[in-house]
């Protein structure tokens, strides 16, 4: 029930520099920044990833998820339509659906058994007409006014997004062509979920947004390839983004890793060793596509990453929990027409990614290393000039450009521009 709209106070904190090349550390540490993000971003004109349709294929299938730190339910109605609503009872605020996922024609709150249908509409109110000694609800009680708070929902190729914003642009416009294409590429065939991975990182969620838009760290932080001689000097990269530069997508073309032999020269001695894998079956995959792309990373503002790394396919849902903590929720999938061997290959390559991933475990560590170091000096800045800064920001395409663009978009939504 709402009486008044939340008043969004003017920010008492500094924002990024206009070009996005300087970001005050306090944006990663302050509770009031985090609270404002929940209103201005996650409740704002953005599309938030919430689930894959493959996770709720049948009528009345549901899955609980989050938009920012607000718990929601994603649900498929009897007619197959998709819905999302806040998982908070319209009566006195209890969590309605306590299961992580399942199939339910009704979502019933345990406290007083108010029941909601698969669209979040109130369909059952015990004692509504009253009982001796307690009375019921007034005659003018209107169940329609007491449903669960609904979000708009849009799905593209089975990737489901939700938005609190009344005027959020249509999903395809919000994503824009290059991102739509990136999704189309991976979701052209029906997918099947193989499982999930979760990690709790003691760092600010935006540090992960930066990380997935950061080409600078790849070969420097992640040593697996170079150590095992899997680094390719001859690889080609291609990137793209939307008009607003909120999102980013990039692919890497490359030979099969097993053919690589040269260890990387990355201007430092960390990875000079040149082992080869004692058990090379780890990397024995089969191309899923004929375009020669071995790696594709797509970051969609605010909280989605979609990956293809060799035969590993996954969405990563960044779930902010507090200024200094987020959950990274991986939904690992394959294609419905995968044969047993292909599934086995994907399960084995899962070694590469996730919380124990041979080529990914470093990211969360780097983020925690930052969060620990910025406990003070909130007015000091992160320095993002790698790639250089052209006068015309539309030409800003090199190095950390994608991160700078992220911050410019962020500043706009937060009223910090």
């Amino acid at each position: 029930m709402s009486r008044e709209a939340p008043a969004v106070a003017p920010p008492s904190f500094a924002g990024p520099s206009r070009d996005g090349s300087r970001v005050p550390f306090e944006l990663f540490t302050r509770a009031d920044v985090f609270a404002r993000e929940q209103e201005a971003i996650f409740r704002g004109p953005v599309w938030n990833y919430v689930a894959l349709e493959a996770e709720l294929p049948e009528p009345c299938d549901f899955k609980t998820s989050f938009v920012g730190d607000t718990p929601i339910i994603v649900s498929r109605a009897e007619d197959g339509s998709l819905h999302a609503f806040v998982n908070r009872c319209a009566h006195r605020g209890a969590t309605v659906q306590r299961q992580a996922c399942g199939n339910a024609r009704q979502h019933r709150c345990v406290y007083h058994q108010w029941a909601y249908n698969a669209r979040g509409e109130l369909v059952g109110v015990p004692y509504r007409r009253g009982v001796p000694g307690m009375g019921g609800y007034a005659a003018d009680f209107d169940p329609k006014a007491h449903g669960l708070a609904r979000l708009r929902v849009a799905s593209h190729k089975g990737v489901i997004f939700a938005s609190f914003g009344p005027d959020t642009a249509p999903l395809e416009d919000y994503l824009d062509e290059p991102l739509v294409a990136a999704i189309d590429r991976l979701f052209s065939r029906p997918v099947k979920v193989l499982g999930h991975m979760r990690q709790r990182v003691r760092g600010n969620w935006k540090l992960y947004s930066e990380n997935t838009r950061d080409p600078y760290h790849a070969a420097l932080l992640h040593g697996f390839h170079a150590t095992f001689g899997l680094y390719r000097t001859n690889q080609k990269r291609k990137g793209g983004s939307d008009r607003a530069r909120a999102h980013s997508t990039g692919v890497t073309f490359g030979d099969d890793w097993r053919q690589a032999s040269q260890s990387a020269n990355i201007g430092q001695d960390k990875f000079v060793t040149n082992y080869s894998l004692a058990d090379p079956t780890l990397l024995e995959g089969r191309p899923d596509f004929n375009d020669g792309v071995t790696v594709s990373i797509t970051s969609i503002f605010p909280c989605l990453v979609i990956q293809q790394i060799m035969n590993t396919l996954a969405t990563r849902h960044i779930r902010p929990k507090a200024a200094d903590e987020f959950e990274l929720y991986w939904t690992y999938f394959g294609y419905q027409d995968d044969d047993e061997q292909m599934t086995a290959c994907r399960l084995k390559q899962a070694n590469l990614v996730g919380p124990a991933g041979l080529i990914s475990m470093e990211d969360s560590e780097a983020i925690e290393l930052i969060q620990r170091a910025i406990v003070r000096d909130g007015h000091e800045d992160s320095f993002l000039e790698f790639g250089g800064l052209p006068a015309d920001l539309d030409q800003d395409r090199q190095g950390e450009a994608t991160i700078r663009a992220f911050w410019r978009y962020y500043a706009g939504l937060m009223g910090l521009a």
Partner: protein
Amino acid sequence: MTGMANQAYDAIRALEYRYARLLDEDRLEEWPKLFVERGVYKVIPRENLDRQPALAIFFCDSQAMMVDRVKSLREANVYNFHYSRHVVSNIEILSARDGIFEVAACYTVYQTDLEGQTRLFSVGQYRDVITNGAGELRFREKIAVCDTFNIPNLLAIPL
């Protein structure tokens, strides 16, 4: 328990404790040697168990693959420095046939950071298949099923 079963139990317990101590003493290179050559080691989040085959976050189906993992941890990977402590308890032999033992146990793993503060890192169950190889017991299979399927930060050292 018969005297025989009894001795088998003691030997299995010794193997489980040895496994834990090698990891806690950072003797990672010896870890694969506790498995048979085609040994399997997996870490499976409990929430993934309802789907079969279950998605693991750490997967080795050969000793060689474990060797690669250890090499990677030593040479390539960056992870949080810490002391680990693997506590193994509730060791049960669920079945014994032809010298092959199905064993269940509880594990509790703690991590202590460089400031000396300890946190509970992971709790779960070992589901092991232990067999007699070259005169000593070894793991044919060790599945660590994590109750704690939300991994704090990252998982580097095997559970």
